[in-house]
């Protein structure tokens, strides 16, 4: 990007003129045209591009919604219904945005588990991975605040329960919560600030995505074998090979997305959110959106107070404990590159890690189911076991595997591995 880049000839005087002064075309050509990419990607490598498309869809649909939306506790519910009934194609844009949030999370979760399976978080991609976890956090904040905007019962009570998490902070917790609310409960000041932040954060995400991709283009992509490309034979230029493959993946994904939008637009939502918010009545069963359920189950799994023995002094109340575990579950992902130090990336060559990976996935999915259940009896016990297994995976299993696992021999190079497979 320095001043001494040799200008590329694009065969078009206008493009050449611009490119000489601002080498955006050279950059695109370098990063997306000829960019050498491992030749052995499978379809799991499509989900980054899919997530990017979803971000664009969310920004476009959100912008249109924002033009019709008003943040006011007395108006918001009706204004969203107006979008649904009176605004031309308002129903479509809203359903695109609503289901888009779910599809965005599906894409990102697949993208993350892809990274876990193939060890994409390992050296030299630690920072790339951390930026990704940061994007996940920002997405969660964005989706949480977006869900408050239609001001239904779930909006209100979801906002109440989640903001109250901060009251678990010792001493200053209540002050912080009052500050977050701008009052003594979730109310109009809360709604207006959530709208402002919901509008802003996607653009912050866009910025972090840019850094994420910039970091990716320094280290280059990982691949299903988890070994670095060694020669030209191991790579293909990004375009046309992966532009086309990504486009194909995006199309398939969009078809599934459209099926939800047109045939089951409320399948992933909760009917209670079509009841206007009522601060005096809590719905009997509060559940967050599906993409938060595993974290919600972890939050609720901590049911005892930890006290100093023989006294009543509570060190960690069950409330604080739950909150710490929930944030801890994401913290695990941040420090993952330093927990799993095995030099072999891909689970294909790590027979034990592979088994634990599937166990970990099953644990996360089970936690998701438990998060939707009432917190009692067997559900609490299952949540607790799964929460333990979740943390054990990161803090016990991975460090032990580093020591005791015998990885399979790695192939000498990507193209040789492919040729060997073909035979």
């Amino acid at each position, binding site marked *: 990007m320095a001043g001494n880049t040799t200008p590329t000839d694009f065969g078009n005087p206008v493009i050449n003129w611009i490119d000489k002064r601002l080498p955006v075309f050279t950059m695109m050509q370098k990063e997306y045209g000829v960019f050498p990419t491992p030749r052995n990607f499978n379809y799991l490598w499509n989900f980054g591009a899919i997530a990017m498309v979803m971000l664009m869809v969310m920004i476009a649909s959100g912008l249109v919604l924002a033009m019709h939306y008003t943040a006011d506790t007395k108006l918001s519910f009706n204004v969203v219904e107006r979008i649904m009934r009176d605004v031309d194609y308002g129903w479509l844009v809203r359903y695109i945005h609503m289901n888009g949030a779910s599809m965005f999370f599906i894409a990102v979760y697949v993208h993350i588990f892809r990274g876990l399976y193939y060890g994409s978080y390992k050296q030299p991609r630690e920072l790339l991975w951390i930026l990704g976890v940061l994007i996940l956090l920002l997405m969660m904040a964005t989706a949480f605040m977006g869900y408050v905007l239609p001001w239904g019962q779930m909006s209100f009570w979801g906002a109440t*329960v989640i903001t109250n998490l901060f009251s678990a902070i010792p001493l200053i917790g209540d002050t912080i919560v009052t*500050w977050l609310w701008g009052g003594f*409960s979730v109310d109009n000041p809360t709604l207006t600030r959530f709208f402002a932040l919901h509008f802003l954060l996607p653009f912050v995400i866009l910025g972090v995505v840019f850094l994420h991709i910039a970091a990716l283009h320094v280290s280059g992509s990982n691949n299903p074998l988890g070994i670095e490309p060694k020669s030209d034979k191991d790579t293909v230029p990004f375009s046309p090979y992966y532009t086309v493959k990504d486009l194909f993946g995006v199309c398939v994904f969009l078809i599934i997305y459209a099926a939800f939008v047109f045939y089951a637009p409320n399948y992933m939502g909760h009917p209670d959110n079509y009841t206007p918010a009522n*601060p*005096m*009545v*809590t719905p009997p*069963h509060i559940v967050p959106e599906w993409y938060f359920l595993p974290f919600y189950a972890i939050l609720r799994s901590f049911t005892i107070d930890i006290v100093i023995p023989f006294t009543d002094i509570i060190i960690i109340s069950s409330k604080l404990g739950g909150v710490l575990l929930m944030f801890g579950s994401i913290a695990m992902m941040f420090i993952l590159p330093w927990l799993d130090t095995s030099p072999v990336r891909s689970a294909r060559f790590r027979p034990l890690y592979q088994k634990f990976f599937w166990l970990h996935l099953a644990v996360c999915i089970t936690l998701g189911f438990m998060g939707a259940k009432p917190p009692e009896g067997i559900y609490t016990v299952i949540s607790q076991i799964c929460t333990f297994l979740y943390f054990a995976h990161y803090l016990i299993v991975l460090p032990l595997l580093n020591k005791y696992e015998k990885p399979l021999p790695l192939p000498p190079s990507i193209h040789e591995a492919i040729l060997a497979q073909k035979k």
Partner: protein
Amino acid sequence: MGNPHSHGAQCSHDAPQKHGQEECPDNGHDESKRDFIFISAASMAAVGTGVVAWPFVATLGPAKDTLALSTTEIDLSPIQEGQAVTVMWRGKPVFIRRRTAQDIELARKVDGDATAFNSLRDKQKDTDRVKQSTFGGKEMPQWLVMVGVCTHLGCVPMGQKPTDMRGDFDGWFCPCHGSHYDSAGRIRKGPAPHNLAVPTYTFLSENRIRIG
């Protein structure tokens, strides 16, 4: 500052010892002057940022009109024994229950029994949760006034309506994560850390209270 090479040849900041005082006669003097300017400018910038950031942070707290809404008066006369009403105060529900003699007895039994009392998570006597002050010569243990917000994560517990579940201790039950409160609003079972809060309130007359 960042790039010693730009000053390099004449006066290196990196290696004053090597080049010595002759080459850079003003070096020591100059450096301490620069350090002083640098440190004082940086600290002024830090203070300035803090001073400017504070109003931004403070705008997010409760505004004056929000604070102004913080008292409510309630007429208690229509409430029958055993009945409960919910009123709004600061955007939150406040539970007012006119307790039966049985409710009171149940709560006070815990007060009297040392083991039961010591097993409470948030130890508080029933007598400390109601107004003991007398008005017109009467005690008021029948009136229990509490913020109807679960101290776990803020749901509104059930138990106000006669048809509601009241939990294992015949008080209130929070369905969100299963907290059980007794007939004095004390947490007895479940994840909530504290008893239901008693707001500041005063009896204006025998049948009238002001909350806040």
